[in-house]
């Protein structure tokens, strides 16, 4: 008997094609890298050291991020105060903060000549040293502790208000609340947050480039860069890239099933009314944690602004040129990302689960430097890689942002198809009309957020471009890194302020576009 009409779906091949293109780009890089790797593989003591350091710093970064996030999230979950919303929103800021800008801020505060060291000097104590393991972990905690806080806060805020009402009625003391309500959630969310941060830190490059280095503090990602840039040993870079893929890939696979989803509004809901923890001591404790977290976040940000303003006048003309370059790289990246993310997310939203997870896996496991190395090898015989540095940077950035964008868009896409799929099908809406009239207006808010995120990540990215760029071409983060490397600290601080403004500005532009006319 004839099979009757299908359930509602947008019949397009754009999704599989877009996803296939991304796969092919990554696979081509991988094959190019593998072909260059020399056999038998030599894995020297320096490589082992890099591997050990990569895993160890990721472990410590994830551990401290989650440990400090717990009391901060707990304080935020059970207190309601003026500025709470702003603070929770600010917890999202490190995510779009260019790494090198944050490093600059951390150096001003915690560096050898930084504020804290000067304070210690007053008491005759030696200055801090934040180069090496301490610095790398500090920077990673700066970036990821807020993320962990939001994930845990999100989990606790999802506990129904009725349960806290019941707890209040029974007069449960804070330890009992922790045992019965908070701990079960923490046990679910905590390992996921730890795993996510661990995997993110495995492929961290810019932090290691600026604060690490040397035999005791080189990550695999940094070792790829050094093999490539200083020794021009493509064979060794290739071997290290494969090691990176195996390490990050297996960690991502292991972590995949406990990775938490990432949402735009994460942890931004109203606090649940709670009746516990009203004692003065606990209030003081929570206030301390919130204050410490806010200071840890805000003081380095303030330092960037404070030291950047006088630096603006010191900046060489190349900074403005680089800023312009960065704007178009980020724009190209965002356009490509949106063009890929829309068809892929609507496709995955209509297929069974698993697709998004697989995509996330690639995003987390494939290191940008590995892809960059691969494409350098592929391009090299035909053209000067430096000529294509910016395009490749934009494309690799788009690939890296894709898993986040798809994860952000997919729930909204699913919602559209659930709510309006039948209506659209019944009216014969399909193809461009379906996108224009139904899908885009309904997913505008998450689309703006995803585009803003990708623009900010791209404009602040200091990764692939370091492999490709020559002296004539630089993005703003690279230009800033060069200024820092030549000890033009004030000019670098000025560039940091420009970069910070651009990253936040591009994010705001896209996000505001998404929110405008966003309605029921």
């Amino acid at each position, binding site marked *: *008997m004839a*099979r009757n009409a299908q359930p509602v779906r947008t019949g397009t091949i754009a999704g599989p094609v877009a996803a296939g293109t991304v796969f092919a780009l990554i696979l081509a890089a991988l094959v190019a890298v593998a072909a260059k790797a020399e056999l038998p593989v030599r894995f020297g003591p320096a490589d082992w050291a890099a591997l050990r350091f990569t895993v160890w710093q990721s472990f410590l970064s994830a551990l401290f991020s989650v440990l400090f996030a717990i009391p901060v999230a707990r304080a935020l979950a059970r207190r309601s105060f003026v500025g709470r919303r702003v603070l929770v929103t600010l917890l999202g800021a490190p995510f779009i903060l260019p790494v090198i800008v944050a490093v600059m801020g951390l150096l001003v505060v915690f560096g050898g000549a930084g504020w804290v060291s000067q304070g210690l000097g007053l008491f005759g104590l030696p200055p801090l040293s934040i180069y090496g393991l301490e610095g790398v972990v500090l920077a990673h905690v700066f970036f990821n502790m807020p993320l962990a806080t939001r994930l845990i806060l999100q989990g606790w805020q999802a506990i129904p208000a009725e349960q806290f009402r019941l707890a209040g009625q029974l007069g449960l003391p804070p330890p009992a609340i922790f045992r019965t309500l908070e701990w079960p959630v923490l046990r679910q969310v905590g390992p996921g947050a730890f795993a996510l941060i661990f995997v993110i830190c495995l492929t961290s490059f810019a932090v290691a480039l600026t604060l690490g280095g040397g035999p005791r503090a080189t990550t695999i990602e940094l070792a790829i860069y050094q093999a490539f840039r200083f020794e021009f040993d493509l064979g060794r870079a290739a071997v290290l890239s494969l090691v990176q893929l195996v390490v990050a890939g297996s960690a991502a696979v292991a972590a995949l099933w406990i990775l938490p989803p990432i949402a735009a509004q994460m942890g931004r809901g109203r606090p649940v009314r709670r009746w516990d923890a009203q004692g003065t001591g606990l209030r003081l404790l929570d206030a301390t944690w919130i204050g410490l977290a806010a200071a840890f976040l805000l003081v380095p940000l303030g330092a960037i602004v404070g030291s950047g303003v006088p630096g603006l006048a010191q900046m060489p003309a190349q900074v403005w040129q680089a800023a312009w370059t960065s704007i178009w790289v980020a724009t190209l990246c965002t356009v490509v990302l949106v063009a890929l993310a829309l068809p892929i997310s609507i496709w995955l939203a209509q297929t069974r689960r698993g697709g998004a997870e697989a995509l996330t896996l690639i995003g987390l496991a494939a290191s940008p430097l590995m892809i960059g190395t691969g494409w350098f090898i592929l391009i090299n015989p035909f053209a000067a890689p430096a000529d294509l540095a910016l395009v490749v940077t934009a494309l690799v950035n788009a690939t890296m942002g894709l898993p986040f964008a798809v994860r952000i868009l997919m729930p909204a896409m699913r919602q559209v198809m659930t*709510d309006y799929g039948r209506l659209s099908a*019944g*009216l014969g809406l399909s193809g461009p009309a379906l996108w224009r*009239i139904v899908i885009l207006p309904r997913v505008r808010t998450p689309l703006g957020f995803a585009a803003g995120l990708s623009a900010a990540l791209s404009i602040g990215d200091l990764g692939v471009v370091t492999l490709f760029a020559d002296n004539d071409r630089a993005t703003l983060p690279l230009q800033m890194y060069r200024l820092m490397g030549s000890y033009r600290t004030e000019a670098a601080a000025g560039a940091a302020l420009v970069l910070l403004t651009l990253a936040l500005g591009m994010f705001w532009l896209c996000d505001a576009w998404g929110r405008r*006319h966003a*309605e*029921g």
Partner: protein
Amino acid sequence: MRGGDDMLKVDGLHIAQGDFELGADFAVAKGQRVAVIGPSGAGKSTLLNAIGGYIESTGTINVNGQDVSAAAPDRRGIAMLFQDGNLFPHLTLAQNVGLGLRPALRLNPAEQTRVRAALDSVGLAKLGQRKPGDVSGGQQSRAALARVLVQGRPLLLLDEPFAALGPALRGEMLDLTSTVARDTGATVLMITHAPEDAKRAADQVIFVDGGRAQAPRPVREIMSNPPEALRAYLGS
């Protein structure tokens, strides 16, 4: 059955969803208003969704003499109103109605006039530029009916689109539906829970129970002498 006069004819229709199964063989004559009643979970909604082409089924579905079993929902000569989500919240009422004429929404002046006339005839002449969120539930229902009006499809399926309205408003909407159906010459299948709705707005009743959709019978006959299963459902 007088084959040529059937608006809807289902033969060997079979729907399977997990443990749930529903079979149907019946025909509905042109111009009839048919109430579909039955206990919740019996498969009323499933039946209409299968006829509309929104869920998979086997067997044949004929609408207006055409076999539409494999056609897309918009190619079946059917307009359907769902329990909710009948209007796009980000479009104005006029745009929502306009979608019934042209899915790409680029209407020519004559079509715009038709949209205005349709809004006028359901009493929404002044509200075309409002969005669904800015009007009442009853006005939203009217806008959806205005779209049905411009669609001009020969078969109209109603999956309790007025369930959220109060009894008085619901009655009003059922009357308006009858008017719209009369004006467009449409045959109507409507799911309802209330026997008084069936009496008010239907000529025939299809009773769905025990995995079968029974053939339609005149509403007066079935209400005055309900079969055992229907009596149990109605509680009379």
